[in-house]
Every structure is written in structure tokens, then in C-alpha cells.
């Protein structure tokens, strides 16, 4: 079976949820990947949505984080204050799965504004649940399409913290979660350098060249010595993904 760039991105993201107990699912691409994980690598994964659905098992891909399907299939539905205070904040969720308008080389996320805050070039939707998902989940995984205007050197506005200014910054701020352990794009997978926390290329998707990835990255991208090639999507993964997205794509 052939597949496109978005498909290998989503499949790769879904694979990285294998072995996890619980995932706090952001709106958009993360939701597709998390739902695919439940159909492939991790049927027992507890999906948690900021709308209050815990253990949602939607049969069709939700279009929003508050679809009726989420509540109706969940193990429990709680209030929005409770989902943040009792479930996210104490650090009991394994993985936070986030999208972004922009990510910088240290994994920080902007979903607020492009340009000056007071007189913005582009006003984005804002923070939503992301700042606390990024702060409090044991680990976070970020999924974005790989474009120079998305993977940028430095953010003008930090909506959600990755590694902040670099090593030690999260700990100094008292954050408990490890931060972004992986950035998954339609070209490859970036992982933080253990020393500098800078996102470096760990894996490229089949058919993609390192130069293409570099050209699509807004900073001089370092490449790991042990650079891997992502395993292509299996027919089972693609079948599951396509049956999931047949109802409509997610913005």
C-alpha cells in the first residue's frame, strides 16, 4: 500500500504511544494519532480530553475535543475544572499529545500570535489546555507539519513551555514533567539532544532526504549520528487510519 506524508506522520505518532497507560489528547492532529494508537499499537490506552472525557473510545474520529461520541464512550465524564485539577495537574498522565502553530528548536510552542502581541500579524486561537498539558504530563509529544514557518528558530511568544531556554530550565521552574521527548512531522522525527535539549533529527521518513528536512526547518538542524529511517506504515496501520479518517479529516 502507498501512503502520503500526513499518513506516515500520524502512524509514527500513534506508534510512539505504545506501552503508555494514559494520554492527554490535544485538538487536531494529536487526536487522530491517539485514536489510531487505540486501534493499533495500544488498544488499552486511556484517552483523556480536556472536555472532561476520561477513557474515551470513539468509534468515529471526533471533530472537536468535546464531541458527544467522546462523552458517550468514556469510562467517566468529569467537569472541565476537574479534568485539569485532579487528572492533569498532579502528573498522573503519561503523555501529553500536542499540536502547534509554531515550535522552536527547544520544543517551545506558540499557538497565540504571529508578530507583535498588541498588533498581531496573525491572531491564533490561543493557549487552550496546552500550557498545563506541556507542564504536567510526564512527557509530551508534539505533532506538526514540517515547514520553515512552523519549525522556527525562536518564538516571539511562548504559549506552552518545552525546554524553555535549555537544560535545567524546566526543573528550575518547578515543572514536574520531562517535557517534549519527541517532535513528529510529516518528514521525520526530531528528539531533544540529551546535552543541549535542542531538537535534532532522529529519524527520516522513507523517501525523504536530510536536505529536504533541513530546508523545511527554521534553524540549522543537527542530525543524530544514528539517524534512522522510519519504518513505513504497515497495511494494518493504513487500513485502520483510513477507516478512522473516512468520516472526515481533522484540521
Amino acid at each position, binding site marked *: 500500500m502507498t501512503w502520503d506524508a500526513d499518513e506516515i506522520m500520524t502512524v509514527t505518532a500513534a506508534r510512539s504511544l505504545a506501552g503508555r497507560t494514559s494520554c492527554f489528547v490535544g485538538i487536531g492532529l494529536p487526536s487522530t494519532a491517539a485514536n489510531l494508537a487505540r486501534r493499533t499499537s495500544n488498544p488499552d490506552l486511556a484517552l483523556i480530553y480536556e472536555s472532561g472525557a476520561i477513557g474515551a473510545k470513539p468509534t468515529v474520529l471526533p471533530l472537536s475535543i468535546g464531541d458527544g461520541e467522546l462523552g458517550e464512550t468514556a469510562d467517566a465524564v468529569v*467537569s472541565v475544572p476537574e479534568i485539569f485539577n485532579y487528572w492533569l495537574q498532579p502528573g498522573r498522565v503519561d503523555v501529553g499529545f500536542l499540536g502547534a502553530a509554531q515550535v522552536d528548536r527547544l520544543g517551545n510552542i506558540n499557538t497565540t500570535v504571529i508578530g507583535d502581541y498588541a498588533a*498581531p500579524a496573525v491572531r491564533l486561537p490561543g493557549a487552550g489546555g496546552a500550557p498545563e498539558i506541556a507542564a504536567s504530563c510526564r512527557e509530551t509529544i508534539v505533532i506538526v507539519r514540517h515547514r520553515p514557518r512552523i519549525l522556527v528558530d525562536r518564538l516571539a511568544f511562548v504559549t506552552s513551555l518545552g525546554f524553555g531556554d535549555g537544560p535545567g530550565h524546566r526543573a528550575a521552574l518547578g515543572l514536574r514533567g520531562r517535557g517534549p521527548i519527541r517532535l513528529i512531522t510529516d518528514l521525520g522525527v526530531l528528539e531533544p539532544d540529551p546535552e543541549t535539549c535542542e531538537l535534532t533529527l532522529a529519524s527520516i521518513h522513507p523517501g525523504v532526504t536530510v536536505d529536504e528536512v533541513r530546508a523545511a526547518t527554521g534553524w540549522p538542524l543537527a542530525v543524530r549520528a544514528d539517524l534512522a529511517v522510519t519504518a513505513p506504515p504497515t497495511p494494518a496501520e493504513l487500513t485502520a487510519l483510513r477507516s478512522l479518517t473516512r468520516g472526515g479529516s481533522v484540521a
Partner: protein
Amino acid sequence: MAELVSLAEGVAELVHDGDTVALEGFTHLIPVAAGQEIIRQGRRGLTLVRMTPDIVYDQLIGAGCAARLVFSWGGNPGVGSLHRFRDAVENAWPGPIEIEEHSHAGMANRYVAGASGLPFAVLRGYVGTDIAKHTTTVSTVTCPFTGEVLTAVAALNPDVAVIHAQRADRRGNVQMWGITGVQKEAVLAARRSLVTVEEIVDELDPRPDAVVLPGWVVSAVAHVPRGAHPSYAQGYYDRDNDYYQAWDPISRDREAFAKWLDEVTA
């Protein structure tokens, strides 16, 4: 005990020019009909509060009802931007709009503090982000037991909260179920409240995942079938995803929006 009123009466009585108004509903049970009645009655200078301003707030902002927006995520879920909101923020059209933004966790806790009669709430949030730089309602507080510094957010106590629910009984007891978001907190935090409902029934039989607001904490209840359209009311109708898609070209274009506004206010 809540008064049973028409939607027009409820908005006229409870929502005044210059008020701080929270229309809440997290994807589900969004009080869209009430928002459009506020447009129809020409309210001005409102501080609009809502965690997830979506189409109904795009409409209120485009119609010029809002002087200020307090929010945590503004978008057309599953579609993209709110263009009336962006036009107001980016180009001050139809007028300037002041914004105050938070994270969801912060907004939720601001309502919790408001509902609890406390001036602030404590959370682990905002740390290391640029959000707190642009608002005076995020600060810090030190734990008197451990010395740890935590984030504090100021309570939200709107003048009026507006929500939509599935049902009420004739005494104004309100019942909603499914994803119920932050609506209980919004009503309990507000000085006044208006609840639109799909149905008025004799008896509220118990339902799983139901939240009941007794009539004595609600100011008025209005019977407004399909009052959450294009969002959904579990047990009554599904989300009208086409409406969300169709809103995008209307919202993108000032003239298309003006035409939409004429139709709504006609």
C-alpha cells in the same frame, strides 16, 4: 426559584449594556440562540467571557456587542480561525476589542474561585510562558507550609452567566448531561443567570452523567428548542458540522457577515 421567561424577556431583564457576560458550553450545549438574541437586542460594551469563544462569539464580536474578550481558546473547532474575532483584534473592526487571555486550566480555576466565594484560585500553570505577561489576573502565591511558589488566578464573577441545558422542570430546576464543561461553575460564580433549555418537563428523572442546578440558584429559564444549534444537545440533536464549515466564508468576509447579520436581526 427561577422564573420561566421567553428568551427575549430573559435577555432584556438579565443582560445589560456594559455587563460582564459569560456564555459557557464546552463544544456541547453552547447557548447560541441566547447569543444571537443579545445581538438582536443590540447590547453594547459587553465584556464577553468564555473559555472557547467559537462561532457565537465571532457573531457577537462582528456585530459590535463586545468591548472586551476574556478567553482561553478562540477558534472554529475543526475548521480554523474565527475571522470576525481576528478582524477585531488585528484591524479593530467593527471596533477595537480589548483581550485578556488565559489557559483553559486558568480560566476553569477562575470560575471555580468565583463559584466558591474566594478571591483567587491556586494552580500549577502558566509557568515559563508569555501568557501571564499580558494580564493582571495571574500572579503567584507562596505555600505557607512548604514555601513553594505557585500560580494564583483571580476569581471570575460575571454579572450574568448564560448556558444551555437539555431540560428544566416547571420550578426552574435545570438538568444537563453529557459533557457539561464549566457551566455549573459559571452559573454559581455569576450574580445572575439565564438558562435556555430544549424542554420543560414535569419531572426531572435521574440520568447518568447529569448535573442538576436547583432553581434557587438560577435567575431565569427560557424554553428555546434547538437553542444550542449548531453545537449539539445530547439526546436531542447532533452537531451541525456543515454550519461550522459554512461559517468560515461568511466570517472571512465583512460583506458576507453584514448580510448574515441583517438576516439574524431582521
